[in-house]
């Protein structure tokens, strides 16, 4: 069981981070975005990679983490989006998710694109990944 001070630490950690959820299945996106907001994160939603790129390029929006599905309609799937982010916004962390088993193998060759979370995922596992990534980022010189 977490102590009160641990809970407060977690909430203050969450409130300082902004997550962009990229998912074309609207109901799946609403559920995870809501969950992350309930955990204290500021969350923006994008329905595809084009919207994600627009948000990342917006001058008044600072995004810390992109949580994106791999399978998306359009020219840019989640892998391509992750590569674009790495090239243009190297400070933004990426977590990919996929329901296709083969994607995990591809993701392993794209380790710079970040760890892959298999669908269906438990919402708490997304929070755990976010916390791991931000903790790792905080310890980097």
């Amino acid at each position, binding site marked *: 069981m977490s102590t009160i001070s641990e809970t407060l630490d977690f909430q203050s950690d969450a409130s300082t981070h902004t997550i962009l959820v990229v998912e074309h299945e*609207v*109901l799946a996106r*609403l559920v995870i975005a809501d969950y992350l*907001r309930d955990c204290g994160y500021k969350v*923006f*939603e*994008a*329905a595809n990679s084009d*919207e994600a790129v*627009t*948000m990342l390029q*917006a001058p008044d*929006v600072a995004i810390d983490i992109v949580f994106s599905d791999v399978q998306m309609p359009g020219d840019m799937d989640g892998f391509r989006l992750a590569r674009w982010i790495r090239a243009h916004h190297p400070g933004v962390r990426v977590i990919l998710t996929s329901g296709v088993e083969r994607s995990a193998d591809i993701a392993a060759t794209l380790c710079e694109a970040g760890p892959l979370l298999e669908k269906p995922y438990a919402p708490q596992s997304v929070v755990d990944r976010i916390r791991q990534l931000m903790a790792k980022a905080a310890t980097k010189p």
Partner: protein
Amino acid sequence: MSAASVTSFPRRSPPTILVVEDDVITRCHVCDELRARGLKVLEANSSDDAFAVLDRVRVDLLIIDIHLPGSRDGLDVARFVRDRFGPTQIILTSGRPDAPRIPDLDDVGVFVKKPYLVEQLLEVVSRRLNWPSASDM
């Protein structure tokens, strides 16, 4: 009872709003401001996604751009909501100059012309939902 003796109390539980807008920057900005006022906000970027949400969730207010990608436009979604979910409030937006001349526009909902100030939209939302506006908070 005189009209002056009737008091309208602000509602307690947060209403649910569905914002349907294909301009992601506008959508995120509007949704962000609505959430900051304690409202429950769902968002969709097309009419198809709007129908998917409406099929599962009852909303108190629909804010929708008239011109949307998808198999049907925003006006179709708004008419569907008006006919199916009578009590749901509807706010329609558009930047097209001919939009205000849509024949049944006033029967469908309140029209807010684009570009709008978010504060202007929030005032309309507060009035439609009897929810405190920024100046009341």
